[in-house]
Each structure stands twice: as structure tokens, then as C-alpha cells.
């Protein structure tokens, strides 16, 4: 097996690459910092949570979301890289959807931000298409045999987001209160939305 020969520490490799590219005018520091800041502060699963809470409280919006995810998500102002075409998968008592990218780490950035470690882990990527019920059980989600499991492998430019089921006992909650129950994990399909 081959490995690269220079054995550079990643922080040093990052600095070396960045200084070479800046020096040659191929990138600039402000753009680098802007990318980092955007994904640290502005784009994350709170966006997706707002989409889900809207769908739970507005049946017409839910209909648009399931028919054309990209357009309905853009209604709330969320779009951008890795969100050219977003398909929303509705979980029901009888059907559970879960999303993976076996080839790399494709993920719907505009609604969920950058993927967490577990989503990029070889164990998740390899096993989710082979024994999803076992993987979900390891995460703490036990699904009955009467629930169909549908795994979506993100292999094209289409990105997937799960619309989790609205938890029981949330009838009186506002849209903002509902959004607080919607986790990133539920929108990938490895958990259910939290009960209040």
C-alpha cells in the first residue's frame, strides 16, 4: 500500500498550500476566511429545522416541499452549493427513509450545513446500504418489522433531506418551538424528531 511520502502534518500542509496559492494570486485570504465563516455561522441544520417546522404547520407548504423540494426550500431563503436539486423524503408510521453517501460525503449543505463526523465515517458509509436496521439500532433507533426501510445513496447531484414525523403532544407549539425539536440527525434519518 502506498502513502504519500512527505508525511506533513495537516495544519502545516494547509498553511503551505494556502501560502503558495495566495502568493501566486490564485486565491485570496478574505475568500478563504469567508468560506470558513459562512459554514461556521450561517449555514447549518437550523435552516432545515425551519423547513420541517413550516411543513408540520402548513399542509400546503408540505405539499410543495414534497413536490419540489428545491423551490419550497428556496421560499425560506435557503439555496446554494450542494443544493441544486433537493428531494425531500417524508417519513410516515410505515416508511422510514435514511440518507447516506457511500462514495464520498454528499450532503444537502443549504439545509443541513456540512456533514458531521459520523456521516463521513467508513462504518456508516459501508454499512448503511447493507444492514441499515442494525446501524439504526446502534444509533438507538429500533424500527419494527412493519416499518419499511428505504435507504437513499446520494450518488448524483441530487441531495436528500428527510422530513421526520411530527412528535406526539406538540399540537399547541409554535413554529419556532417546533423547529427546536428538529435535529440534524432526524433530517438525515438516523433518529426521530425529539419529543417536547
Amino acid at each position, binding site marked *: *500500500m*502506498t*502513502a*504519500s*511520502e512527505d508525511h*506533513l502534518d*495537516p*495544519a502545516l*500542509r494547509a*498553511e*503551505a*498550500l494556502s*501560502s*503558495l*496559492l495566495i502568493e*501566486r494570486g*490564485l*486565491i485570496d485570504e478574505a*475568500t*478563504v476566511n469567508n*468560506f*470558513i465563516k459562512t*459554514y*461556521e455561522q450561517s449555514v*447549518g441544520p437550523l435552516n432545515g429545522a425551519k423547513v420541517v417546522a413550516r411543513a408540520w404547520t402548513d399542509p400546503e407548504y408540505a405539499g410543495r416541499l414534497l413536490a419540489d423540494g428545491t423551490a419550497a426550500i428556496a421560499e425560506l431563503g435557503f439555496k446554494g*452549493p450542494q443544493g*441544486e436539486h433537493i428531494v425531500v423524503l417524508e417519513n410516515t408510521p410505515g416508511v422510514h427513509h435514511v440518507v447516506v453517501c*457511500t*462514495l*464520498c*460525503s454528499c450532503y444537502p449543505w443549504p439545509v443541513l450545513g*456540512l456533514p*458531521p*463526523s*459520523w456521516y463521513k*465515517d*467508513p*462504518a*456508516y*458509509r*459501508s*454499512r448503511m*446500504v*447493507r444492514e*441499515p*436496521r442494525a446501524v439504526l439500532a*446502534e*444509533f438507538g433507533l429500533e424500527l419494527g418489522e412493519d416499518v*419499511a*426501510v*428505504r*435507504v*437513499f*445513496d*446520494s*450518488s*448524483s*447531484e*441530487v441531495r436528500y433531506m428527510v422530513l421526520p414525523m411530527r412528535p406526539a403532544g406538540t399540537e399547541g407549539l409554535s413554529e419556532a418551538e417546533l423547529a427546536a425539536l428538529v435535529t440534524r440527525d432526524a433530517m438525515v434519518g*438516523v433518529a426521530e424528531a425529539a419529543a417536547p
Partner: protein
Amino acid sequence: MDGIADMGGRQGFGRVPPLTAEPPFAEPWEGMAFALGLLSIRAAGANLHAFRHALERVPPLDYLGSYYDRWLHASQMMLADSGVLTSEGVAARAARLRGSDAAEPEPPEPHKPQMPSGGPGNLRSLDTPPAFAVGDRVRTADLQTDGHTRLPGYVRRRTGTVTALRPAAVFPDTAASFLGENPQHCYAVEFDSRELWGPRAEPFSVSIDLFEPYLEQVR
């Protein structure tokens, strides 16, 4: 290519890690690696597909090391492929950043790929009608390539059902090697778990988006 990145169905990776909440970047260099990955695509005159192909060519030991270190290796590889820098130049710059006064080699002569683009993003409209319709049974190709493909090994030579038409898009297999956008129709194809993993598989289905050249009709 049949590389380390094609992980679907591979065994031996152990339990999944816990569902922890965490910041996007654990350390500052990870944020820099993320930005460099995206910006290197432009600096190298490459595209997203070429970046994914660079990622899958990262040597397996490095690939499995850490996610954003993998991005740095891939960025460097893509930039070296375009003659923007050399690995000797990166090593020399790293040495100087550590305080060495080692001489740096002259920058190479860039030879960036010149692939025409049909526009921003990857979605394209096609004049030719799609070959398959929802409900069609399709079989996946026995595709063997050392280039990039989005047909993972675990769904090769398998029979499934078209469940949706996805937007036509730039064909990653040719775009990654700068052979052209060659846009193709794309389909959501659903496979039963037993078709993929045999009669003792857990009951479930896998839906995966496959480009038209990967598929042939089952009659």
C-alpha cells in the same frame, strides 16, 4: 475506480460512532482545508468531479486518516495535475514555514485543463428523450474503469426498478477526466436488499441515482 472511496457494503469497519453534536471544524486547519478544497478546484481549472476523482485517488492509508487531511491531499493532487504546484514545492514551503532556509524550486508551468462548460452548476437540459420510464426494470452495467464513476461497485450487474426521473446532469465519468460535460439523463433506481446481498439480507431497499449509460432495459 475500485478504490478505497467505494465503501458501500464493505465489511470490517466496526460500529458506527456516536451521534455527537460538534462544530463544523474541530480545528482551524480543518476550516482552511475545506476552503482550500473548494478554491483549488477553480485554481486548478478543474471541476467538482475531478476533485472527487482526486479524493478517491488519495492513497488508502492517507484516505482513512482524517476527512479534511484527505481534502488537502486531494487539493494538492489536483493542483499538481494542472501544473499549478509540485509536491517538492509544497514540501519546501512547509520546511520554510517551520523555519528552515531550504531553497524553493521554481514554480512549474501550469497546464490547466480546458474543458468547455455549458454553464454554472451541473444540471443541464437535454433534447433527447429519456430512454427509461418510471416502473421500468433496469440492469446496471458491468462497468470497469480506472477513471471516475458514480456507479458504485455494490450496485454493478444488479437489477432494479426506475422509481423517478432526476434532472439531466453533467456526466461525472467524462467531466472528471476533462473529456466533456456529456450530459446524461439520470434516474432514481430502487434495489431490493436481497438483490444486493442475498436471501438472508435484512428487509429494506436502496434507492440510488444512476446515469443512463450505466443502465440497460430488462425485458
